[in-house]
């Protein structure tokens, strides 16, 4: 099936070369980081996780979202989604790959990464995160490849693939729950120490991932002869609407607990993020921007007229992605470490090499996504789907 | 051969790259390692194990030492002849073999091995 990847129009190759250039720059910066150590990033003794781990957290959510298409199709026989489950699965593969890469670039001693396998430690959530992420990657690779391959040949996929599909559904929920558990069990970090964190993660995953999937479907329709379908996009819009509402609702619940109880430990991180603490308020404009985009997204998604029109729905999806990315990709990690255990504020902002490495990993993910989507779309065009 | 020109060209480039270390070193023989024992080492007569065993597996010994010292807190080693030694690369091994450049590095350089021990463990200052 990889033969379909090697034939494409100019735009396809141009896009891939563009991504390769960004990947190259990222790699160069990573070699610099490998040499000098993580001191070239903005991380510090107080904010010891930063941009890389934040991107990882956001992308686990995007990866988990494949289940939002798989579940209705396989468990509720919603036949329409049969057209796009492959797109959801391939998005999951690209997202999980980026997650693994972000963990890798964040490690102080990446050459020792096998230690996590050589010395399994079941009491550590990172151990389980490694298992569920790699398992999910393998699941989607096997499922996606076999289903697509069977579609090309005009046969039904082998029955053992069905077993894997059923396993992948709860597994998708587990990957983001386990990732939330990384944060939600740490006694000193009150911004994260909340039972609702895992639920928040899932809600934000299930709106941001499908939002990205929806935009990708619109792009696929534009650049190829395969049309994911008006009904599919409309249903996705409905899913995104509910998930975004839950996401915003859960956030408001957190705000209530923090500010009605007036407990300083609970309030401080929100104060830091939205108005600044001790003079440090660099994130405030970002968080309010996120709030603004979240408001726009909810408005466009709740009102049926704007949700059903594809152009306003696309704007809503972009707003969802911006809002959720700022919340998870910036606010979550930095806010969790601020203020520090001594009630002081240490500023964190990603440095240029850090941003370039991040872009390099994103480009790698989009490269994999483009290649896989080219394969899926070409085969769907071939069989006249 | 279909695309024969490209294949032959590719083969030449590929094999050339693969063989490049041999071409680079052609005609030069690497200098055999010459390990020199310090006076202290000569007087001590015995290392941890005998020479053959140390040459063959000093790295395994050091790996086991670092595991048992750091993780189990077992800092002392009883040699076959009964002498008790403090398990430390820096303090015990390098006490006798303080001439790292003429001892340790001789074989390591020859084998192109760069143990990362010295990233943390402090090598003795070489006497000029």
């Amino acid at each position, binding site marked *: 099936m990889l033969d379909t990847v090697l034939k494409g129009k100019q735009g396809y190759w141009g896009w891939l070369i563009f991504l390769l250039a960004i990947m190259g720059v990222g790699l160069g910066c990573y070699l610099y980081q490998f040499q000098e*150590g*993580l*001191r070239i*990033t903005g*991380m*510090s*003794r107080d904010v*010891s*996780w930063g941009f890389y781990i934040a991107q990882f957290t956001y992308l686990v959510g995007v990866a988990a979202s494949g289940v939002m298409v798989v579940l209705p199709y396989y468990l509720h026989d919603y036949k329409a989604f049969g057209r796009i489950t492959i797109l959801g699965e391939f998005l999951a593969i690209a997202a999980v790959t980026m997650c693994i890469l972000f963990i890798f670039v*964040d*490690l*102080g*001693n*990446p050459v*020792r*990464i096998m*230690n*996590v396998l*050589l*010395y399994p*430690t079941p009491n*550590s*959530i*990172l*151990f389980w995160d*490694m298992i569920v992420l790699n398992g999910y990657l393998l699941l989607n690779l096997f499922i996606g490849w076999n289903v697509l391959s069977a579609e090309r040949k005009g046969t039904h996929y082998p029955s053992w693939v069905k077993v894997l599909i059923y396993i992948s559904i709860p597994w998708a929920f587990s990957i983001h729950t386990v990732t939330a558990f*990384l944060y939600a*069990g*740490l*006694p*000193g*970090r009150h911004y994260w120490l909340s039972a609702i964190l895992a639920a928040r993660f899932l809600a934000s995953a299930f709106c941001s991932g499908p939002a990205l999937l929806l935009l990708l479907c619109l792009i696929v329709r534009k650049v190829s002869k395969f049309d994911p379908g008006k009904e599919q996009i409309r249903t996705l819009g409905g899913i995104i609407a509910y998930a975004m509402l839950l996401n915003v609702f859960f956030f408001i619940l957190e705000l209530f607990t923090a500010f009605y109880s007036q407990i*300083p430990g609970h309030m401080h991180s929100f104060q830091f993020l939205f108005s600044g603490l001790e003079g440090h308020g660099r994130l405030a404009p970002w968080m309010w921007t996120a709030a603004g985009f979240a408001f726009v997204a909810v408005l466009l998604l709740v009102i049926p007229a704007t949700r059903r029109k594809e152009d306003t729905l696309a704007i809503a999806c972009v707003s969802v992605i911006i809002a959720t990315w700022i919340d998870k990709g910036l606010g979550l990690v930095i806010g*969790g*470490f601020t203020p*520090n*255990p*001594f*009630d*002081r504020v*240490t500023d964190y902002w990603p440095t240029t090499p850090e941003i370039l490495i991040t872009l390099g990993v994103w480009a790698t993910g989009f490269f994999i996504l483009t290649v896989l989507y080219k394969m899926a779309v070409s085969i769907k065009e071939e069989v006249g789907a | 051969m279909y695309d024969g020109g490209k294949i032959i060209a590719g083969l030449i480039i590929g094999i050339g790259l693969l063989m490049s270390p041999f071409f680079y070193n052609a005609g030069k023989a690497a200098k055999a390692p010459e390990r020199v024992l310090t006076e202290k080492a000569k007087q001590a007569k015995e290392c941890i194990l005998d020479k053959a065993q140390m040459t063959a597996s000093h790295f395994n010994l050091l790996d*086991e030492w*670092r*595991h*048992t010292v*750091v*993780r*189990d*807190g*077992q*800092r002392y080693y009883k040699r076959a002849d009964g002498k008790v030694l403090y398990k*430390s690369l*820096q*303090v015990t091994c390098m006490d006798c073999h303080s001439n790292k450049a003429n001892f340790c590095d001789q074989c390591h350089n020859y084998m192109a091995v760069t143990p*990362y021990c010295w*990233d*943390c*463990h*402090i090598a*003795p200052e070489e006497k000029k």
Partner: protein
Amino acid sequence: MGIDRRAFLKIAGLSTILGLGGKAAFDILAPGELEASTNAASPGAGKRWAMAIDARLVDDKVISEATSACHRHHNVPDLDSAKEEIKWIWEEDYEHSFPGHQHEFIGDDIKHAKFLLLCNHCSNPPCCRVCPTKATWQRADGIVMMDPHRCVGCRFCMAACPFGARSFNWGDPRRVTRVPELVAKNQGFPYNKDYPTRAKGVVEKCTFCVDLLEKGEQPLCMTAANKVKKGSFTFGDLSDPESPIRSLLRKRYSLRRKFELGTNPNVFYLI
């Protein structure tokens, strides 16, 4: 032979994976020499090491002597950077040592009191719970130990520690001998040629001087502090009811940092 190419490739691939994987699994999981040694009796089983610091006796000289004794013995570099600093024991004021305790009506003596903070070697340590490689673990004698050979630098332990006790080597600590701005502050680094430095990419922290404890000596911060002000530091075994530290804790009121989090810290501040 009715086997087709596809089936042959499948069988060959599967056998290779099982063969290689099986050997790898056997090598990793089979009990070997190393495993046997870890089954030996753990040192100090039954002990519970703890430190009591008398806040009334801690002054600037105690702080500087204790800090430099520790940092010099353990080759901790002075990186002159709040961002990258490495500290095993350090000075902090009341408000920031015990966030939330301070109110507006306390006297100046407590308000301006100085505290020495270090790893609490908690009895219920969250850092050990989260480490994916057991590069940090709790010994039988209660000390939370670091194995810099195994640490992959994921910094999960740093996120988990509620006390900010852990430092990470963001770069190569030995660069203090190469970078002109840092050379002056680190004359003679590495100070202790009998103790290693660390390398970039690993986490480090106070170890209650395990290498000295095992020789029957005491932690260096304590020895240095007590030379300046006798009784400022008391180190001992909490599991021994007759130990000096136990009787001290019975007699004097003591604070522990963030006790409400249940990590059961073993550094006590006598007020």
